[in-house]
């Protein structure tokens, strides 16, 4: 299984922010995306997840193999930890809720409603969701925000397990995950050149 991204260009707010990004990810590999704030990491990940169209280039992967983890975790505050996970497991037709909770150290909190979790506990629950999708390609946007050092370790361990089982991961982060085996791709060189102002008052590219 592979994720092949070739010469992709992505746009935000009608403005191309990144262009010419290419990489390839095979089973068991992880790639960390880096780049200063605002370079377009989130935009790139959303495009790969299929939530917005790419401006150019191609993305190749098996259908329904990608699982997106965003800033917002998709948790329902009034449901308990276990109920939240069970829902996503049912949506993806997968078992393993208990296992996911155990892996992310949530078993003690299983009957706590998500509203009553601290910032870091919530984040752990959001990451546990990845485990119940059963999908091989994880696309994660700053997954370790709010996590303490121990939880970052925990997550790195889970990630290694996922890779060892043949999964892939694409992670945008500013923090060092301690994942030495992962390749790093700095996005700064791919920042889109500012489109030239249309000459002669032409409208044809004013919409770019």
């Amino acid at each position, binding site marked *: 299984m592979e994720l092949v991204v070739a010469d992709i260009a992505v746009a935000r707010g009608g403005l191309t922010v990144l262009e010419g990004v290419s990489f390839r990810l095979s089973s068991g590999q992880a790639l960390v995306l880096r780049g200063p704030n605002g370079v377009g990491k989130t935009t790139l990940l959303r495009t790969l997840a299929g939530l917005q169209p790419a401006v150019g280039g191609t993305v190749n992967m098996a259908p329904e193999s990608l699982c997106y983890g965003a800033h917002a975790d998709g948790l329902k505050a009034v449901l308990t930890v276990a109920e939240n996970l069970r829902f996503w497991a049912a949506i993806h037709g997968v078992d393993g809720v208990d296992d996911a909770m155990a892996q992310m150290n949530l078993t003690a909190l299983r009957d*706590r409603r998500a*509203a009553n979790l601290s910032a870091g506990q919530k984040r752990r629950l959001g990451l546990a969701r990845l485990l119940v999708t059963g999908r091989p390609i994880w696309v994660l946007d700053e997954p370790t925000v709010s996590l303490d050092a121990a939880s970052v370790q925990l997550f790195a361990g889970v990630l290694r397990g996922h890779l060892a089982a043949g999964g892939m991961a694409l992670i945008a982060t500013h923090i060092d995950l301690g994942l030495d085996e992962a390749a790093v791709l700095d996005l700064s060189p791919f920042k889109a050149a500012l489109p030239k102002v249309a000459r002669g008052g032409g409208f044809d590219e004013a919409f770019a």
Partner: protein
Amino acid sequence: MSIWEYANPKKFMQTSAWALPWVAGLSVVTLVMGLIWGFFFTPDDYKQGSTVKIIYLHVPAAMMAINAWVMMLLASLIWLIRRHHVSALAAKAAAPVGLTFTFIALVTGALWGQPMWGTWWAWDPRLTSFLILCLFYLGYIALWQAVDDPDTAADLTGVLCIVGSVFAVLSRYAVNFWNQGLHQGASLSLDKEENVSDVFWLPLVVCIVGFILMFLALVLMRTRTEIRARRLQALLTRERIA
């Protein structure tokens, strides 16, 4: 010994455990007596026929529906001023009882209205203000249920109860102003006994006492439950943290 001693949940649980069977027993006795007396052993009214029998349910329920709200108002004030948990929980416990009494008054009134006024419902001021009272109860209960944190919920519902009471009184006057009604005037006042003859009056008083006792018994019982539920929640949270 000050009365505030009973605001201590532990003390309250002890006292109410002792009092509850008595109040409950008495209320059953008076209610059964009053209703049987009213239903089987009173004559028909010359104008209203057998429908007068409805009075033994309708009037006590209507009175207690209003008094329950007054009790909730007092309990809310005590909670907000002195922060005694029992009073907040008593207000919470009383609301569904008051709401049920409101329903009883509305239903029996409607059933009475059909033969007497030829309609189930008329926008008579008293009826209307009762409907509004029903809405106040619903809002109050809904707010209790919508807020998770028990103290927050108690504070918010307390404020709502006070503001709501002011507006309930205003509504009563507004509604009076809006429409003159069909409904009976006060006939139970002590100085105008002749309005309702003794045959109807005595069993009615028994029923009213029965309803008062029933209200007390229910509120005691439900407050005990609320206290336990509150403690249960606290213990469970503790357990989870540990």
